[in-house]
């Protein structure tokens, strides 16, 4: 098969791929186009992509004033950052202990981790909600972050990765008089960056997009995360003001999409690594 030859088969292949890509990207094109259309354009000509009356400024102003977008995005960043930091600080020592240290509880812990992998937040939400309600901690960063501080998946992923780190490296560090924490900080973590990046991407994508848990514990705009805030915006925007709605979706979607476009290679590596090992 000559790669550069332009055969019929290749033309068919490329047309299918391009056709598919156009369909997959169409929602983005319409989002960007509609965000700039005046109400009259939206009703009269839905197929023309270039707005007749440029209304980007009007629509974006509406989107930015109805709901505080900066608060939403800030909450998203704070919640994702807190979750990720706790997850890593708690999962890495545990995964290291299970992978490299000999102790009796390790096998039982492995069983618990495998069981934990089965349980999504949707299954634990009811008791956690009741407990948080009793403790009067609903509507707080604590409520948004706490249940995710333990990532069983993180432990599992790091465990797989740490097993591949040679024991000699750890023995040598121990002979140098390093403590176990010192080994984690100066031997394990520097060798585990690919796994940590992969996990960071997995974790941030999951929690930036999560609607279920924030919807349950937050009823107050000041702690709303981006998906929840958009829901509020939709509720406030009762009619068919799709121009403002598309401007709002554009603002909310951009950060993660931009991050993805900038760090594509890492994203794909991350998904492959977390995906295949999960």
């Amino acid at each position, binding site marked *: 098969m000559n790669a550069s030859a332009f055969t019929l088969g290749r033309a068919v*292949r*490329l047309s299918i*791929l391009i056709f*598919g*890509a156009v369909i*997959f*990207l169409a*929602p*983005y094109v*319409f989002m960007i186009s509609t965000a700039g259309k005046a109400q009259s354009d939206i*009703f009269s000509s839905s*197929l023309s992509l270039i707005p007749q009356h440029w209304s980007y400024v009007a629509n974006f102003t509406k989107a930015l004033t109805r709901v505080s977008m900066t608060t939403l995005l800030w909450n998203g960043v704070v919640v994702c950052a807190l979750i990720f930091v706790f997850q890593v600080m*708690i999962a890495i020592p545990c995964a*290291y*202990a299970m*992978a490299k*240290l*000999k*102790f*009796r509880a*390790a096998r039982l812990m*492995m069983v*618990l981790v495998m069981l*934990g992998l*089965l*349980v999504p937040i*949707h*299954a*634990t*939400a*009811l*008791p956690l*909600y*009741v407990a948080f309600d009793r403790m009067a901690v609903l509507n707080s960063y604590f409520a948004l972050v706490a249940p995710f501080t333990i990532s*069983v998946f993180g432990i599992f992923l790091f465990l797989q990765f740490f097993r591949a780190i040679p024991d000699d490296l750890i023995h040598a560090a121990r002979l140098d008089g390093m403590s176990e924490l010192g080994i984690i900080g100066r031997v394990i973590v520097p060798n585990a960056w690919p796994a940590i990046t992969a996990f960071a991407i997995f974790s941030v994508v999951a929690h930036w*997009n999560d*609607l*279920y848990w924030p*919807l*349950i514990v937050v009823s107050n705009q000041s702690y709303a995360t981006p*998906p929840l805030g*958009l*829901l509020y915006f*939709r509720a406030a925007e009762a009619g*068919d003001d*799709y121009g403002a*709605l598309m401007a709002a*979706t554009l603002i*909310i*979607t951009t950060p*993660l*999409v931009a991050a*993805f476009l900038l760090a*594509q290679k890492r994203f*794909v590596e991350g*998904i*492959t690594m977390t*995906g*295949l090992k*999960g």
Partner: protein
Amino acid sequence: MAEATAAALPLAGKPARSAAERQEARAGLILSLPAMVLLFVFILLPVAVVILFGFTDYELGYTGFRFVGFDNYTELFTDRTFRRSLWNTTVYAAIVAPISIFMALGLAMLIESETIGRSFFRTAYFLPVASLLVAMATVWQYLFHPTIGPINALLALGGLPRPNWLGASTSVLYSLSIIGIWQSVGFNLVLFLAGLTAIPRELYAAAHVDGARSAFDRFRLVTWPMLGPTTLFVTTISIINAVKVFETVKTLTEGGPNKASEVLLFTIYQEGFVYLKVGYASAMTVVFLAILVVLMFLQYRVQDKQVHYS
């Protein structure tokens, strides 16, 4: 797992544990303690409590509750909303999982055999995975709009019938499935691409020597069996994700019209967190969890039977 077994063996002949070994065991326990405490508090305990709640008539706002045995479960299976919800979730998963798997596999093979635009195509198909689903659902709502939406405008140009996509009980589940497929193909695609890249080129050459001339023969003899583990994983994760559909339903239809898009997690959410019937919603949660357990169990069974090529 092998290592864990090996590690446990020396403990059988207990007596002579050196000071270093004891120290290592203690360090292991201390390092894993925070994780184990949180695992207990946020996962194991809540699951136990959900199972317990499932046998009670607990409602938030009321003090105290009674144990009602299996009453919640018998009520569940006569509850028309819940049965509708289970059925809709099944239909949704039966549409979204297979289509997003085979579409992803097909596209991955096309991209893999193409030399130009590889990273462009990968990006284009993967973009929905990295996008906020609630936001993109809103865009789809506009695309699906019966009168001002571009999809129906396009259909009108072709003189085709214009369905009321999300607004009619006959089409709402299919419209949600389209969004579900659009959203999940990229994830599966990336996994399949990784699986395809890992297949050694020599296998194709060997198959060719053995007489596999057509593209279909190469697929049947090399690609499909070599992708086995990837396909199994993608299948499990696709079904589980489809069973967990919630965002699009909550954002676009609230289970309507006429309960035609009522799905499992949405029903649990309504009963538990809107009507605050914690006991009843817990019984539903147990059913949901049971479905996940069965799916994982099936995956392990198939995995055990699968021939390992690598």
